[in-house]
Each structure stands twice: as C-alpha cells, then as structure tokens.
C-alpha cells in the first residue's frame, strides 16, 4: 500500500514533467524545426534569427523554469516539514518578498553590494523576514495560523515598500518592474549558470539532512530521545530552504505559490513520507512551472515577455491557498473573537473635544505648512490664496476618505467579531480595485457613478464571500484574516496581469492603486463630499445593533435582532463606505484598521462613540499621511495611501504580537 502510493506519486510527477516537456517541445518545434535543434543548441548559426532566439532565449528560459520550479518545490517541502505547517512556503512566509525588498534597496542605495554578490543581499533580506515572523509568532506560542498570518502580512508590507521605492526612483523603474514581478524571460545563459551550482549545493545539503529530518515527524520528545539535536537541525534545514528561495528570487524575482503547490500536490498524490516528498515535490515544481510558463507564453502571444510568469502563478496559487486554509488547525494561542480591552480611564466627554482639536490642527497644518526650496514655509496672504486651490481639495479628500474608512473598520470589526478586521486587511479594498477594473472594461470613459456602483459591488462580493467562509469555519478571526489576505493576493494577481498585458488603461489604474491624493481638484473634492456626507451619517443609526452583534449569534437572535437583515444592511453600508473611500484615496491605507483600534484603546467602548472616534482618528491619520507624503521627500511626493500603509502595517504586526495572552 505504502510502496504503491509512493510509486503512484512518482509516476504522477514524472507524468506531469513529461507533459510539460512535451508541450515545451511542441511549442519550440513551431519556432524552430526539430532537426536544427542540436545545431542551434551547440553552435547557433549567427545568420538565423530563429536559431539565435532558440539558443539565447527559449532554451535558457525552459531550463530556468525547470531549475526554479524544482528549487521552490524543495524549499516548500522543507518549510512544511520542519515547521509542521501544511501552508508554509516561500510565498506564505514572506521569504520571497523579503529577498525582493533587500534587492530593491541595494539596487537603489548600494549598487556596489550587487557587484559583491546579489545572492548575499537576497539571503540577508530573506533571513531578516524569517527572523521577524518567528519573533511575531513566538509571542503566540508558534501557532501555525499566526506564522502564516505574519508571513503574509510581511509579504504585503515588503510589497508596498517596494512599490514606494520604485515610485521614488523612477529612473530604475522599468528594469525593477519587469524583474520584480517574476519574469522568466532570458537573453542568455547567465541565469542558468548562476542558479545551477548554487541550487545543486543546496540540494546536496538537503539530501545530507534528509535522514535526521525524518525524525521531526515524531513529537519533539521522542525525537530528542533518538539523539538528534532538534534545534540545530531545524535551523540548518530552514537555512537551506531560505537559501533556495533567495537564489531563485535574486535570479528571476518572485514566482509565488509554486513552493506551496508542489509539496501539496506531492502529498495529495500519495507521497506520504518525507523522503518521498523530497524527490517528488521538486519534480512537481519543475513540471508545474514549465507548464505555467508555457501557458503564459502561449496565451499572451506577442506580449509574452511582459506578462510575468510570477503573476500567472499567483493567479493559480491564491485559489489553492484559499482551498487549503481550513487545514490549519487553530490553537488556543490564536485570536479569540471579541475586542481589544479598552483602557480603564473612560471619559468620552474629554476625548471628543481633544480629537476634534487634533483634526483641526492637522487640517490647518496641512493647508498652511509646507516646504519650499528655502526650507519650511507658512503660507499666508496671497501665497495662501494661491496654494489653497491645491491644498484644500486634497486635504478634504484625505479627511473624508479617512473618516469613511474609520467607520467602515468599526462596522467590519463588530460585524465579523474580529478584532483585527479592516477593509484593507480583509482584501475589500482589492475588491474595489477589481470593480474599477471592470468599469474600465465596460465603458471607455467610466463616470464617477459607474465607478462607484461597480466598486461597491466588488467590495460587497468580497465581504459576502468572507462572511460565508467565516460562518462556515465558526468565524475564527485568524482564519478570516488569512482568507482575506489570500483573496487579495488573488485579486492583485488579476490586476498585475492586466497591467502587464500592456492595456492603455493600466497607467490610470496604477496611479490610483498607489493611493494618491495629488490629483484631487475642487470638483473631485465636492464630488467626494456629496458621496461621503450621507454615508458618514448612516452608521450611527446602527449603533444599537452594532453593540449587540459582538456578543455572538445566539445572543443577538435572543434579543430579537433580525440577523439576516442586520448583516445585509451593515455589509451594504460597509461596501459603500469602502468603495467611496478607496475611490478617493486608494486601497492600501490602513486607516480602517488603526482608526477603530485607537478609538477603542483610548476608551470609546460603545458602538456610537467608537464610530465617531474612529472617523476622527481615520481623518487625522490620512491628513497626516498626505502631509508627510508631501513634505518628507520634497520636492517629490509620496502617495498618502502608501505613507499610511507604512504606518499601518507595523501597527498590525505589533498588534499581532501583543495579542498573545
């Protein structure tokens, strides 16, 4: 039986690899007839463009795909085995994103490091992220859920940092962009000669460790009883997996999810033992990546060099992640449904005037205070009149967007009973982005009305999916977060593919995705106000229901809350609020996470107070972010949404570590 299933999985892996290679051969054959291959491979004729393409592009691309796929499959297998976590992989632990961030930083500020060896830079970044997510999850007893959650959040964070750096350094952008997205396109054999010895070394080391690693299948106590030093064994194995990931990332960028999919498929096909998976998973990985790469080339036609294979693997991999999520067992260390405890000091009578004062202060600062070539300047008189035309609209757009997000966050946290829920973290902002994308597809010049309708529908769909999954899984908060993040990875992949395919509308989408306020003019500001005013007035009417909902379904039903109606109404309102705010200030702002949290932490416990407080704090945060984005790197500007994300993500990670007990 055992032998049977093992051989079956080997046959399956070999079959997959054969299928992939056959397809590659058929496609190559259409480019260059079979009988010319040997010649083209060994001594390409310099007169024949097809032979040159074969030798310097098609063939190295195929070999690179095989090498990267196998390496990621091996890395994923080791991660999953050592961490005893079926969802661990280079992508879900954020290791790829860490390597990428380090490389981008080095490219911009320390190019000489790349001369010393780009692999060292990538390894440093990958190790840094690994250390960080272990620190976060150690605060919660190394819960599997927390580890993956921390990894995905770090992925998100590194991703947005990379975007910020690219925007700041336009001169590098084209090369950074193509590489970072995981393109397998090759011009010579350098990637292969770079990867081959390094990956072989890692594979050799992994083979040496294979036997001692098997004991990790046992519990820690029995393993130590067998005389294996677990600590060093784990560290050594993880180091190999991190190295594999870093090498691949430094050569071709992020190829997401292969490292998750290959070991999983190996396991499902019957490779139950670790040693079997060590062989089968790399085979599967190589076959998968070649298949995906061929499909990407075949489907994108003349754009094949621009559709990064990494975007396609993300497109396929994110649904896989969603499907696998229920496998993660919750532990007592995970977040409990409920809320962060408020401070004991409780005086909303003083807090509201304070928050109002804060809002007025940042608004004034944002309108009056700026930087010029001569240093800081306070606008007055004529200068103010001139500048107000620019500064007032963007400040009001930031204010309204932040306020709407703050309220949406309160609605979400109370609706889902999830203390870390927010439109940004649950991927609802990405739903809005898809809605906008669709409105661009439907109409060549979509009006504000169509955009709002489509993006609200997108937000509502994401929210409905999350709630449906949440009710199915008895609404464990961490599960819901993971579902949200996996969902946004999927939707992101759709957007990246759309942009990469060279659609002319992509530029418009890209600018908006970064969350900028600097295109706001008087018309946009008035329009935003017209949409925001009714939406901001609505949530307080739900405050009594919102007070009861966190007590759970049974109590809510017992008290006569019509759950279906209440959920539907609050979901609809959240969708509208998120859509309107995301249209104004972009999807990645974190005002919807930080606003409700801070409001509660300073003592605003009841729904009504929390709604108002979160709106005020959200508005303050966004104005501040907009202002900082304007002055920090003067004369250039950072999008406000990006600045807010750079504040919000560390806040989220800090919160995850704090929720241990």
């Amino acid at each position, binding site marked *: 039986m055992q032998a049977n299933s093992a051989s079956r999985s080997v046959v399956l892996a070999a079959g997959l690899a054969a299928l992939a290679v056959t397809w590659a051969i058929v496609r190559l054959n259409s480019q260059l007839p079979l009988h010319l291959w040997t010649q083209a491979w060994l001594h390409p004729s310099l007169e024949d463009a097809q032979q040159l393409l074969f030798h310097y592009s098609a063939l190295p691309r195929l070999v690179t795909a095989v090498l990267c796929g196998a390496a990621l499959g091996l890395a994923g297998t080791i991660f999953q085995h050592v961490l005893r976590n079926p969802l661990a992989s280079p992508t879900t632990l954020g290791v790829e994103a860490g390597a990428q961030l380090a490389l981008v930083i080095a490219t911009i500020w320390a190019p000489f490091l790349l001369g010393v060896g780009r692999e060292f830079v990538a390894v440093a970044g990958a190790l840094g992220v690994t250390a960080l997510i272990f620190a976060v999850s150690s605060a919660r007893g190394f819960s599997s859920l927390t580890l993956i959650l921390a990894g995905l959040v770090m992925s998100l964070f590194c991703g947005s940092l990379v975007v910020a750096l690219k925007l700041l350094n336009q001169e590098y952008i084209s090369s950074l962009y193509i590489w970072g997205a995981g393109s397998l396109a090759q011009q010579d054999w350098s990637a292969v000669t770079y990867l081959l010895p390094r990956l072989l070394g890692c594979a050799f080391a992994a083979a040496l460790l294979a036997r001692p690693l098997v004991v990790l299948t046992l519990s820690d106590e029995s393993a130590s009883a067998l005389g294996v030093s677990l600590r060093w064994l784990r560290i050594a194995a993880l180091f190999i997996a991190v190295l594999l990931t870093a090498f691949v990332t430094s050569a071709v960028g992020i190829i997401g999810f292969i490292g998750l999919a290959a070991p999983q498929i190996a396991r499902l096909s019957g490779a139950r033992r670790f040693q079997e998976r060590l062989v089968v998973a790399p085979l599967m990985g190589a076959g998968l990546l070649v298949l995906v790469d061929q499909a990407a080339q075949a489907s994108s036609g003349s754009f094949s060099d621009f559709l990064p294979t990494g975007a396609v693997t993300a497109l396929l991999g994110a649904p896989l992640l969603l499907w696998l999520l229920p496998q993660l067992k919750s532990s007592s260390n995970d977040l*409990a*449904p*409920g*809320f*962060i*405890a*408020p401070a004991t000091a409780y005086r909303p009578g003083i807090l509201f005037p304070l928050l109002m004062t804060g809002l007025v202060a940042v608004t004034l600062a944002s309108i009056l205070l700026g930087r010029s070539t001569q240093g800081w300047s306070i606008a007055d008189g004529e200068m103010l009149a001139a500048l107000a035309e620019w500064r007032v609209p963007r400040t009001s757009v930031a204010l309204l967007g932040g306020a709407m997000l703050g309220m949406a966050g309160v609605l979400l946290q109370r609706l889902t009973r999830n203390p870390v829920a927010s439109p940004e973290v649950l991927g609802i902002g990405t739903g809005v982005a898809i809605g906008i994308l669709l409105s661009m597809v439907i109409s060549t010049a979509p009006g504000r009305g169509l955009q709002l309708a489509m993006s609200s529908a997108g937000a509502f769909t994401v929210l409905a999916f999350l709630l449906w999954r949440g009710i199915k899984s008895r609404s464990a908060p961490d599960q819901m977060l993971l579902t949200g993040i996996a969902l946004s990875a999927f939707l992101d992949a759709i957007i990246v593919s759309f942009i990469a395919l060279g659609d002319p509308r992509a530029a418009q989408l890209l600018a908006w995705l970064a969350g900028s306020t600097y295109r706001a003019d008087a018309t946009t500001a008035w329009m935003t106000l017209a949409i925001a005013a009714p939406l901001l007035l609505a949530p307080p*009417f*739900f405050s*009594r*229901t919102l*007070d*009861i909902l*966190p*007590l*759970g379904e*049974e*109590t809510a*039903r*017992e*008290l*006569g*809350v*019509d*759950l279906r109606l209440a959920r539907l109404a609050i979901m609809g309102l959240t969708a509208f609020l998120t859509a309107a705010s995301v249209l104004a200030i972009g999807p990645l702002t974190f005002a919807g996470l930080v606003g409700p949290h801070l409001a*509660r932490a300073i003592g605003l*416990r*009841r729904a009504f107070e929390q709604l108002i407080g979160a709106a005020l704090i959200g508005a303050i945060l966004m104005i501040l972010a907009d202002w900082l984005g304007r002055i920090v790197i003067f004369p250039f500007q950072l999008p406000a949404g990006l600045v807010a994300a750079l504040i919000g993500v560390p806040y989220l990670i800090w919160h995850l570590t704090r929720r241990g007990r």
Partner: protein
Amino acid sequence: MQALFRQDGTEDRTDSSGLSGPMFEMEGASVSIDGHVLLAPTSLTLKRGCVYGIIGHNGSGKSTLLKLLGRQAQPSGGSIRYAGTPVEDYGARAFARHVAYLPQQTPATTGLTVRELVRFGRYPWHGPLGRISAEDHLNVVEAMQLAQLDDLADRLVDTLSGGERQRAWIAMLVAQDSSFILLDEPTSALDLAHQIEVLRLLRNLSRSRNLGVVAILHDINMAARFCDELIALQRGRIRIQGKPDDLMRSDVLENVYGIPMEVIRHPASEAPIGFAR
C-alpha cells in the same frame, strides 16, 4: 413606526397579565442532522408561572429541545406554537418580547459594564431606533434590583466572578420582560451557594411575574428542590415527565440515568434526595 411598536408592546403586556396566559405547545417536533436523530418527535405543553427542569444524560437532546423552544434551531419536522401561533410566524423582536434565552456558554463581553448589558434586554422593546422610554428604564432598574446587582452596576462584566456574571446575564433576560425564560445549564459553572442563589431567583421570578422558566439542570436534587415539574430525556426522547415527588423514586432515576440509584428523605425537610448507589 415607533408608535406601532409601542402599541404592540402594550398589547402583549395586558395579554400576559392573565393568570393562565399564553403557552408553548410542541407537536411532534424533531431534529435530525445527516440522518442522526438528535431529538425524536416530541410533544410537550409548557405553561406560564411554572418552573420546568430538564434533566438527562449528556447528548440526550436537552439543549436541542431548548434551542427549538428559543428559535435558536429549526425543527426538521413537527411544529412549535407559542400562544397558538407557530413560532416561525413571529418577527424577530416580537418573539424576543415573549421568550428569552440564555445559552450554555455566555459570550465574552469585552468592555461592557453590567448596566449596559442589562440594558440590552430592552432591545426587543425599543428596537434599533426607537426612543428609550421611562418603562424601559424602570424595567432595567427593577431587573438589577431583583438580581442584586446595584453595587456592581458600573463594573465591567468580564471582571465579575462566575456567579455575579451569571446574575448579570439573568438580569438582562429579566429586563427583557418576557413571558418565558429558557436557560441552558444556568448553574453549571457555579459553586453550591451561587447555584441555590440563581435557582431561588428564578423560582421567585416565576411566582412574582407569572413567568414560565425552562432550565436544563445537571443536579437532580437541585432540580427536584426548585422545579415544579421535571422533564427527563433519554436518547432524544422524553422518558418521563411529572412532579418531582413522582420522579424521585429509585426505579425511575435508574431508568433515566442508567445506573443504580437510591432515594432517601431529608431528615429535617422530608425532601427527597437521590444519589448513585
């Protein structure tokens, strides 16, 4: 709309002040999930002003029965009527004005004070937007007094002891001013003194407000002491139903619990006491 609710509410009250009042009638109600029978077709009539104790093994269908009455679960077959009307025909809040329900595990109440929790009991009356009336206030004050929570009113519920917390939740049900209160093991986490305290409170409420109380209880002697009627379930069926005196016999208890039991009389009060032999 608000006026309509109020009228509705006043009407309920005049109706419920009658001595016999509305009652629960179950007719062949059953629950099965994936072919597994949790509750066989069951018929049962429950009256106001009476304390019912539901006893039986774990998994005998006690909670399922209570959830059916409280509309927390849907029957797979049969019907449940309240005051002659099928329970599913009531609106969410209308039903909550008649029947209150306390789950076995009360949820976490992070950041709520006792007074705020008890006020939630008035939601069925004032609804999401209705004005909070003097009567709402009166009911909250009265419920807190009955449950002896006056000194704890501004404490956070999460910081209370188990017994105090249970009293706070029961006060919320009392403020709901319903005709029936359903409680799933209200005494399971409490020590002896608090068990007696809670059960005494429920019996007094039943007498003073003509309230129907249906409680799942583990301790057969407590149930016999405080209930007017006991309902014993076994494997999803009502095995026996009657006055505590009729049930407190060794042969009946052996039948219900499936182990040898004996009943003696309390030397002073003559109350029956059952125990495993």
